[in-house]
């Protein structure tokens, strides 16, 4: 397949061609290079499958996979494609099973994906003693297990890769990302609070970019501005891995509210000086010991997941592409086993800010949709990501789009290789 060359205006990545969001061949190449090769993809949390035999169906890229816990307690990730006729046989979203069976011809697999049973493998014996059919004598079940993915688990979070030569998860994240990852997933058992799911009609990369863009939260999201949760004058840092594919936006909440200097800092109309909550319990924020300072750390692990801490609300957000123009965005809110019931209530209440209906997050999906709308009809144009310059580097402020430039620097390296 001859793919169309993408025209970049500059050598750098501060001007991103619309075509990277609309070209179907590019999309297929991204799936191959980012989701199916050399990268770790998020699949879920251990706490989603706590018991022996538990499973959860999810995806890596656009491929359906099943995360299982086998009888020895090990976690496996296998592709939901029967080795026989390719049936995506597992239709339940979650459950508990002793084995995986494709009902079409009753091929059965152990929870680690090994093929166990093939009906009529040795044929069917007639009353006269003749054997009809059966698989060829050299049929070896070991060659026909479900496709097994490599699995890595850290702090209760499960990642998988179709590529068994992928570097370790720790090398993949790099020491900087790892330190923020371990800050949140520090060994405490997680408890699942529930899911939010939304289908966003935009290219999957736009969600990565949204959480690599500290420019917008203090402008688009009135709640963040007015209540000081995320503002340009908050103490903040932007960090990346060496390859600039992953990032963390780290912010510490300011005083917020009615301060006179606020309007000056934001310089925007979305700041509502007079806005007061009828019910202030939305923002009943209680600092937790593991924060060690920052009130918000938003991590983007490329390509598949965003890890959220916004005050007491913590979640993973799984990016599940479906063609170049849409993705499913699956939020898993969680807590920790040592949470008091008040803390659980608090996490649930603050979840009102996030997800498809969130006071803050609802408009992220909307703007992504509206960007994609333009990309589709203006093929030769490009976006602009030049706040804070045209270079890529870590910063101690958030008045920059450097993380987006960083991601595309990596993207170009991989896609143009």
């Amino acid at each position, binding site marked *: 397949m001859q793919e169309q060359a993408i025209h970049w205006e500059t050598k750098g990545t501060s001007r991103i061609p619309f075509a990277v969001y609309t070209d179907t061949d590019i999309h297929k190449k991204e799936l191959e290079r980012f989701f199916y090769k050399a990268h770790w993809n998020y699949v879920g949390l251990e706490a989603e499958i706590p018991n022996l035999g538990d499973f959860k169906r999810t995806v890596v890229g656009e491929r359906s996979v099943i995360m299982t816990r086998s009888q020895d307690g090990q976690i496996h990730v296998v592709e939901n494609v029967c080795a026989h006729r390719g049936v995506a046989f597992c239709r339940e979203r979650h459950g508990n099973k002793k084995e995986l069976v494709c009902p079409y011809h009753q091929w059965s697999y152990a929870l680690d994906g090994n093929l166990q049973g093939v009906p009529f493998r040795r044929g069917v014996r007639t009353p006269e003693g003749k054997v009809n059919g059966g698989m060829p004598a050299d049929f070896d079940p070991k060659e026909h297990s479900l496709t097994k993915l490599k699995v890595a688990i850290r702090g209760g979070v499960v990642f998988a890769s179709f590529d068994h030569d992928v570097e370790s998860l720790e090398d993949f994240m790099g020491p900087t990302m790892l330190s923020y990852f371990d800050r949140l997933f520090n060994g405490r058992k997680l408890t699942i609070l*529930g899911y*939010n799911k939304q*289908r966003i009609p935009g290219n999957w990369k736009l969600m990565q970019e949204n959480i690599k863009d500290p420019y917008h939260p203090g402008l688009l999201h009135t709640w963040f501005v007015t209540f000081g949760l995320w503002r340009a004058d908050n103490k903040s840092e932007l960090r990346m891995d060496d390859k600039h594919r992953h990032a963390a936006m780290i912010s510490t909440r300011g005083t917020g509210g009615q301060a006179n200097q606020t309007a000056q800092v934001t310089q925007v109309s979305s700041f509502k000086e007079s806005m007061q909550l*009828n019910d202030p319990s939305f923002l009943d924020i209680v600092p937790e010991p593991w924060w060690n300072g920052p009130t918000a750390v938003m991590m983007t692990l490329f390509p598949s997941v965003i890890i959220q801490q916004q005050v007491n609300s913590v979640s993973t957000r799984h990016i599940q592409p479906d063609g170049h123009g849409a993705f499913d965005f699956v939020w898993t809110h969680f807590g920790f086993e040592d949470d008091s019931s008040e803390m*659980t209530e608090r996490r649930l209440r603050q979840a009102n800010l996030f997800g*498809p209906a969130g006071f803050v997050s*609802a408009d992220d999906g909307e703007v992504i949709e*509206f960007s994609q709308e333009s990309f589709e009809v203006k093929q030769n144009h490009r976006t602009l990501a030049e706040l804070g310059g045209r270079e890529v580097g870590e910063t101690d402020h958030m008045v920059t789009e450097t993380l987006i430039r960083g991601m595309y620097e990596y993207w170009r390296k991989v896609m143009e290789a």
Partner: protein
Amino acid sequence: MMIDMQTWLSIQQLYSDYASAVDSGQWDLWPEFFTDQCVYKVQSRENHERGFPLATLAFTSKAMLKDRVYGISETIYHDPYYQRHVVGAPIVRKVEGEQMHVEANYAVFRTKYDKESTVYNVGRYLDIVVPTEQGLKFVQRLCIFDSEMIPNSMIYPI
């Protein structure tokens, strides 16, 4: 019959009035259907049935509903749309003192300006209704929705 005919008619009226209010675009009408202390949740059927407490929206007072109205009208940037509720006949499941446990199916259609109408959110209401001096009000309205993959965003009340 757990309730008399007059109460039954009042419940019918409450459900019709609610649908009419949330379809009208006059968002200020919405919190007035609730008591001051109330529970309003929009929750996926999956979370509900698996016992996960997370809801897509979870409000525990009329004051929170008013904050949501402010969010809808002033702070959340979104594509404007019409919504249209079609609500099935309510079923009274249980009466406990003044509290009536009522359930009804609903379907919400969304129509963005100049676009086709689509089935947006379908599910059922799990309600607790009480009589007050201002008529019947909701102490609880849970909107448990089957349409778990939300088409991008949910802005207006269900």
